[in-house]
Every structure is written in C-alpha cells, then in structure tokens.
C-alpha cells in the first residue's frame, strides 16, 4: 500500500527538483496538445521563446506585459501572506486606472493653476490610483474583519462591479466628444504620460521594480513584516502576542489593493493614455498565478512575472507566425500552475510503502 508520510525536512534536491519536474511535465502536456492539432511542439516552443526574447522589440514587449503582472503579483502576494484571499486585484486595478484617468482628464480644467508637468501629474495620478484601489479592497477587508464575510466572494463580486463601472464611464459620461464614435475617454495630455523607453516600454516597469524592492525590505526588515508573517502563520498566536489583527487585515489590504490600483495607473498612463477597452484583460487573475509560483516572495515575483509575460507574448507571436490560437499560452499557464501545485505535495510529503501486518 502506498501512502503519504509527512517529511520532517525537505532536502535541497527535492525543493528545487520538484518545481522543475512539474514545469517540464506541464510543457510536455502542452506539447501533446500541440501534437494533436498537428503542430511540432519544439517548433512552437522555439517560436514562443524567440517571440518573447528574440530581439530588442520582443524583449520590450515582454517587459511591457510583465509590468502590470509585477504589481498585481506583489499585490496578491502580500494579501496571501496574511491568508487573505484577494481575488479582486482585477477590479482594484480597474478602479486605479479609473482614478488615474479621472485625474488626467478632469484636473487640468478643474484646477488650471496646477502646473501641467509630469512631475506633478504623475504622482497625483499615482496617489489617486492607490487610494481608489485601496478603497476598493478595503471594503471586503472590513466586511471580513468585522463580520467574517468570505472575502473570496466579495472581492470577486467587486471585480464585476468595478468592470461594469469602468465600462459605463468610458462609454457614457467620460466618452470623448471628439472621439469619432469610438468608445473611450479623451486622451491625456502628455504631461500625464509615464515616460517612455524603447518601444512601448514605459515607466510603469520602474514603479514595479521599486515596489518589489520596497516589499522585500518590509518583509525582512520591519516589525510590520514580522507581524504579517505571524498573522499568516497562526492568527491565534498573533492575537496572543498582542498583534492587532483587525488593523493589520485592513492595512495589508490597503497595501495590496493599492498596489493593484497602481497597476491600473501604470496601464493607463503608460500604455493607453486614455480610459478605454483593454484595461480588464485578466492581469488581476494572472497576478494570482504569479504570486503563487513565486511562493509569495517579492523578488521572485518579478522573475515569475517576466516569465509568464514571456509566455503570453510568445503565444501572441505564434498566433501570427504559426496560425496557432494565442490561447495556448493560457492553457500552458493553467498547466504549469496545476503541475507545480500538484507537485508541491512531494516536497512536503514522501511516498512510503506500508508493510502488510505480519500474519
């Protein structure tokens, strides 16, 4: 009889080897799918890699896609550390984008005396995005803290409310009068654009990297980081140690949702420069995968975000070059996550054969 027995310690070989094997298995399964539709998996994978990293344009595209993922990945990571299941990063991102756009569009007219310079506008937009995202996340957090309401469902529902709100805004009251009928807000003035590097790469990446380093510092070097870890590990022990659970749930969510909101600002001020279709494309959900694969570690989030972005960009690329649906990238994401998750048990437990009882 085979059964699982808990490990006392995890050998290095196992803790590195298991995720690696899981990754390979996922790629193998994806390869099978490709074979079924008549495509050589190696060709496809090679095309994906070159589509993501093959040249300077490709690399910048990958980094562009990675930018919101870094921020949402960080957002989810900090919430999950406290065992608060923030599934609402998508909605928080959207509301952040809405707030940033609102500032960019309306502030120039409402307060013309404010200098129209990126040094003024970008911080204000960032702040607005953080506050908007934070508010969007804090309500489910309060409901959970005060009344014990399940946050998975509330954050999920808030996603939809946010997306519908944003859709309403750019198709109706905020619709660009000079827009030729295309749904979308007016374009921001250039003072409200994030600085651009090569290609579409923009300052949002910098924001993401700074946030990652800041989070790492908080976790390892501050009292607050210690308290968050304690609450996440054993809430009762944290209470016993005098840590304020209520305050921390709210604070963590403000941080988490604020980061997601910042991702929304990054997308609007860095890429679209207006409020339009294309803000709610799943970055919030993918951020959950990023956080999980990175084992909630802020610096690893950056690496994983880039890798998942590469997957997505590579998928777009093979749609063009090989005529394969770009959705293969999502399938691979799902497979990778499942296999890594499933494989994780082998690093926590090991298989044993139990002897039959002697007759």
């Amino acid at each position, binding site marked *: 009889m085979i059964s699982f*027995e808990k490990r006392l310690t995890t050998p290095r070989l196992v803790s590195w080897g298991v995720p690696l094997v899981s990754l390979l298995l996922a790629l193998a399964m994806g390869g099978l799918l490709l074979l079924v539709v008549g495509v050589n998996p190696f060709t496809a994978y090679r095309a994906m890699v070159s589509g993501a990293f093959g040249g300077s344009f490709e690399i910048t595209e990958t980094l562009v896609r990675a930018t919101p993922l870094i921020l949402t990945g960080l957002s989810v990571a900090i919430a999950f550390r406290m065992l608060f299941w923030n599934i609402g990063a998508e909605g928080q991102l959207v509301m952040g984008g809405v707030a940033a756009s609102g500032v960019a569009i309306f502030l120039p007219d409402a307060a013309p005396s404010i200098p129209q310079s990126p040094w003024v506008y970008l911080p204000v937009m960032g702040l607005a995005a953080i506050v908007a995202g934070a508010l969007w996340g804090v309500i489910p957090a309060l409901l959970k803290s005060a009344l014990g309401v399940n946050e998975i469902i509330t954050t999920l529902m808030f996603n939809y409310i946010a997306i519908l709100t944003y859709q309403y805004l750019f198709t109706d009251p905020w619709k660009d009068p000079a827009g030729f009928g295309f749904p979308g807000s007016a374009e921001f003035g250039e003072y409200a654009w994030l600085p651009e590097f090569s290609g579409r790469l923009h300052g949002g990446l910098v924001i993401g990297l700074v946030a990652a380093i800041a989070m790492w510092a908080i976790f390892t070097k501050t009292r607050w980081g210690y308290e968050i870890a304690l609450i996440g590990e054993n809430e009762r022990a944290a209470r016993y140690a005098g840590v304020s659970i209520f305050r921390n749930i709210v604070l963590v969510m403000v941080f988490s949702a604020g980061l997601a909101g910042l991702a929304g600002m990054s997308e609007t001020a860095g890429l679209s420069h207006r409020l339009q279709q294309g803000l709610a494309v799943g970055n919030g959900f993918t951020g959950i995968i990023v956080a999980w694969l990175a084992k909630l570690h802020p610096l690893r989030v950056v690496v994983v975000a880039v890798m998942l972005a590469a997957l997505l960009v590579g998928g777009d690329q093979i749609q063009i070059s090989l005529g394969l649906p770009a959705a293969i990238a999502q399938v691979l994401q799902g497979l990778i996550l499942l296999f890594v998750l499933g494989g994780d048990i082998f690093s926590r437990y090991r298989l044993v054969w139990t002897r039959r009882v002697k007759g």
Partner: protein
Amino acid sequence: MDLAVSILSIALFAGTSLIFATVGEILTERSGILNLGLEGTMIMGAVSGFAAAYHTDNAYLGVLAGMAAGAIFGLIHAIATITLRTDQVVAGLAITIGGTGLASFLGQKLGPGGGPLVGLIGPRFVEVPIPGLSSIPVVGDILFKRDQLVYLLYLLVPAVWYFLYKTRPGLHLRAVGENPQATDALGVNVFRTRYIYTVLGGALVGLGGAHLSLAYTPGWSENLTGGRGWIAIALVIFATWNPARAVLGALLFGGVNAIQFRLQAEGTTISANLLNMTPYILTVVVLVAVTYLEAFRKRVGAPAALGLPYNREERT
C-alpha cells in the same frame, strides 16, 4: 402581466445554465471541496457540447459531451485537491485559467477542417411546449414552453433536494462536509465521497455550459459564458447550499438580464452596465446577511469543513 410573463420566461431561460452549475457546485461544496474552477469548466462544457453536437449532428450527444468535459475538469480538481492536497482556491483558479484558454483554443481548432467554431450553426434544443400543461394561463407560458434541458431541471432540482435531505447517502454527504474526521471514523469513505461529488458537480457545471451553446445563445463565440461560472459560485452562498434556493438566485440574475433587454427595447437611458451591477451588489448584500445570521443562529449554511483538506494519519 404580459411584461411579467415575458421577464420571468427570459429569466428562467437565462438562468437555466446557472441553476445547473449552482446545483453542481452545491453538491461539491457540501462534501467540503471548494471548486473555483467553474468558469473554466463551464466554458469547456459549452465548447465541447457544441463541437460534439455539430460534428455528430445530434444535440443530445452534445449534452453528453458537455457533461463529460465538465466531469473531467471536476476530476482534475479532485485529484489536485483531494489526493495531492493542493490549496483549493489556487487549484480552482488554475483550472479556470487553463480551462478558459483551452476552450478558446479548441474553439478555434475544433471546427470543420481544423478551423474555428465561431459563427457555425449546429443542432440545438428548441422550445417544446408540453401538451396540456402549456395551455395553463401565465404558468403554462413561463414554465411549460421551454426546451428539454429546462424540463430536465424541473426533475433535477427536486431530486437533488430530496437526495440531500431525505436519503442516507445525502446524509453522509452533508456529514462529510461538516466533519470529515467524524464521518471517516464512522466508516464513511471521505475521499471517495469527495471525489464522487466533485466529479458529479463538474458534470452538472458542464451541462450548464452545454445549455448555453446548445440552447440559449446558441452557438459558440469567445467568452461565451461571460463570467457565469463565477456567478454560480456566488449563487451557492446566496442559496445557503440549498438547491431549492439556488433556483431563486439564478432567476434573479437571469431576471436582471431580462429586465435589461426589455428596458433597452423600450428605449430607456439607463446604462446597461449600471443595471447589470445590481445582481452582484445584491449577492454581496445577501452574503453579508447570511454570514451575520450564521453568527447568531447556529448554522445557516456553510459546511464547516469547506475548503480544508482532510488527512487521516496526520497527527497535529
């Protein structure tokens, strides 16, 4: 009155897929397993159902294919969460993302000659009025002029309700979700129970998806389910894990859709987006109310072991 009939009819029609999915998830959650992969499962049910129906020219085979797809995805979730003891939330999300991607992929490759399924017209379920019953004023129009899958619902919901509350296996199912340690010690196989109801739940979710592509829309397009899988998860709570109340919740969501169509047809200026928000807001309100009540009245609903893995030999 005409308006009410029309709205209720549309609500029922729109809500059918939701009811299937919600009842399926109720069964899964009653065993203690939280399956957040409904959106991916449902859309896989939709695409599989449509593809199978199209290629065999038989809508019933499509339904079976949809259920099979749902069952397979349920099985994947079961293996991940029960045997491999993965975190249930993340496993469900992986299935949603993977399933949605796979459905999109298949939707572009399962058509004739390896092409897309979009825009194709396939066999479907149409309204089949039940002779006699459909002549009843009002009630007949709403209830008995629907397609066969809706009629299946009329049998399914009471059957599941009866099963859950009045039969021995139903009692065991409820006990497993409340206290797996106790039930295991009494000789009920917790693992097997959870496997069965996660797979069965998945099959029902797939069936819900098939209803979308084989009756409601019908046909296939990207993002056909439009978040219904997520709504079903919320509806389970709305229904306090009771299949009878699930119908109410689904009708509510379906009803809002219906009202929105009507209002737009009449030319109101209220944005569709704002209207569509109401069911979600309402779900949050109900959830808060249910949670609040549960704190006072012992147990309005959630199976106590929901979302927690079970390990027989673990000595804490």
